[in-house]
């Protein structure tokens, strides 16, 4: 509690200074010529390297489209590779917060690392924008005025899938994931959405992260014969799960669904095993939005790669920066004005327009997608303008 009060006092003090007109003038003048320091803490190596790179390059693209400046000020980037290593999370965040003294911290992909970053900025009061990690606490129990997210909470796509499953008339589900926070949060969200149609979770199957020996659990699924299986896996583990599920011939008798991470960035590797799978996410291939087409073309031109959901999240982080710093004319020291500007911003995202909730998490549409070839093709809107319940957040 003490640290939150310190933040608020600090903000009140700077607001008071701003109001004091002439007294502040020299300070603003100095501020306008100095560069804005952005700290990028992302995975540039390791399993999530490709995700980190897309976020980084899309963020820079969004700013480059505005002439490479934020609110008229030049930008100084400080970059740290977090390697998706939670034990080093706090140390890496401190390198940017206390070491490089960045104005705004941006990161990261891995929820465990993001948890460490949330803790650091809780103490320092530094502004933080999370461009991917879905841990619920960041905009839930640990929410704070200086913490924002442009991606999703684990609850959101899971709840949307639960709604879809309930709508199909399915009643008995088995959920399966790694035994860690993100998996459990995702399963919880699914159970909640599924319950809206009277559906029940018959069994939760977990295996230790990052083990991939699924055969015993698939046998268990075959014995239980549920109406649907909801799976939360990502990356290489997702590919193996999809292949094993298909090789056990379970696709024929028990439908498999999941959040978008199951089939995002894994389609080339999963091949046949992923075809026809339905997932939910806040982004899809084949969204018929001019803004999306424009972004995809620009991203491809800048990077020679196809955009994906991570690129979109990075781009929107850039757009949020632009919107906020234009509103305060580059005066990054006016923290509470900046926070207010972000809270009111409407981001014209490639995924569709979104705003931020009181807990600072996007209120956005969730799409039902179906794997066709190498694409997660848009099918329909699963849930419109879905907001995370932000449980435990005192700002709601």
């Amino acid at each position, binding site marked *: 509690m003490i640290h939150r009060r310190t933040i608020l006092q600090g903000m009140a003090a700077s607001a008071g200074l701003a109001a004091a007109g002439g007294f502040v003038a020299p300070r603003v003048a100095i501020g306008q010529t100095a560069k804005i320091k952005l700290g990028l803490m992302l995975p540039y190596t390791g399993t999530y390297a490709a995700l980190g790179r897309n976020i980084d390059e899309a963020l820079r693209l969004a700013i480059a489209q505005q002439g490479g400046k934020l609110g008229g000020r030049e930008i100084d980037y400080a970059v740290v590779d977090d390697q998706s290593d939670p034990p080093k999370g706090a140390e890496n965040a401190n390198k940017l917060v206390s070491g490089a003294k960045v104005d705004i911290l941006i990161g990261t992909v891995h929820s465990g690392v993001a948890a460490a970053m949330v803790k650091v900025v809780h103490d320092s009061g530094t502004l933080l924008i999370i461009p991917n990690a879905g841990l619920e606490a960041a905009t839930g129990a640990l929410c704070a005025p200086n913490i924002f997210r442009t991606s999703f909470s684990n609850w959101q796509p899971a709840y949307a899938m639960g709604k879809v499953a309930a709508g199909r008339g399915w009643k008995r589900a088995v959920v399966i994931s790694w035994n860690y926070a993100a998996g459990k949060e995702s399963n919880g969200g699914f159970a909640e959405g599924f319950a809206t149609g009277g559906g029940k979770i018959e069994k939760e199957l977990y295996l230790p992260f990052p083990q991939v020996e699924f055969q015993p659990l698939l046998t268990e699924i075959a014995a239980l014969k549920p109406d649907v299986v909801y799976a939360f896996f990502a990356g290489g583990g997702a590919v193996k799960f999809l292949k094993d599920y298909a090789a056990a*011939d379970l696709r024929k008798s028990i439908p498999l669904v999941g959040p978008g991470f199951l089939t995002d960035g894994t389609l080339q590797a999963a091949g046949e095993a992923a075809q026809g799978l339905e997932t939910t996410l806040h982004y899809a291939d084949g969204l018929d939005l001019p803004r999306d087409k424009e972004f995809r073309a620009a991203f491809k031109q800048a990077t020679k790669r196809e955009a994906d959901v991570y690129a979109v999240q990075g781009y929107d982080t850039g757009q949020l920066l632009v919107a906020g710093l234009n509103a305060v004319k580059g005066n990054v020291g006016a923290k509470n004005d900046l926070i207010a500007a972000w809270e009111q911003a409407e981001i014209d995202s490639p995924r569709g327009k979104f705003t931020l909730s009181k807990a600072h998490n996007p209120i956005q549409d969730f799409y039902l997608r179906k794997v066709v070839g190498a694409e997660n093709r848009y099918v329909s809107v699963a849930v419109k303008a879905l907001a995370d319940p932000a449980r435990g957040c005192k700002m709601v």
Partner: protein
Amino acid sequence: MSDPVIFFLIQVLNAVQYGLLLFLVASGLTLIFGIMGIINLAHGSFYMLGAYLAFVCADATGSFWLALVIAVPLSFGFGLLLETLLFRFLYARDHLYQVLLTYGLILVFEEGRGLLVGNDVHGVPVPALLNSSIPLTATLSYPAYRLALSAICLVVAGLLYLLIQKTRLGMAIRAGSVNREMVQSLGIDIGMVYRVVFAIGVTLAAFAGMLAAPTTSVFPGMGNQVLIVCFVTVVIGGIGSIKGAFLGAMLIGLVDTFGAVYAPQISGMLVYMLMAAVLIWRPAGLFGRAATR
């Protein structure tokens, strides 16, 4: 048979199948760590090397079998090269040097992989010959490739046992692991013997990676996943014992499989509890040298 009995038997099949695969993955470590006594943290990297070789070769030739034919000699040659350039200087040194070298190799391999193949997740298609499933119950089938894999693992286990226990080369290897100088003075080129054994160890690890590639996927950091469990297998079985490693792998297969089904909350710990229990009962492992000496 009633349903629960059938599913119980399928779980036993899962356990045996997993145990055999585990033995194959750990067999290279049994040679390099168990018999030669080198602490080889890069074992997972050799496994990854095999998987990526299978991916690249299968992609280029269009045939998984052809990929194996190319990749196996490549891994053997690579093993010879590594031993000649690096490892042979470390036999006489403290274990810490080996830890440092092999840890360094992990980093080099990871970076090298990133530069050469990139950081994406890749898949290797299951060869057409084995791309079918055998129905076990109304809802569940067993992939034929996995059953074939078990057969290959059994063959490798048998060959390895024969090589180490029944051949002159095996005798020289075992003797060399106890007393290098004595073997040397008996007129056996121990340097050459070690070079070959090391290369076989690397090849086995890479071979396991190649065979696993179609069932898992090929991705950065995949070696780290198998490294720890391989060490556990070798330690449970008793360092230096092929028989022990085989038994250790089967035990871990059983504990892991039934743990995942009946005690999912602690299944991650069970293997280590098994290891602790075995080491308390027999400090040198099931078939460890110290225990039989």
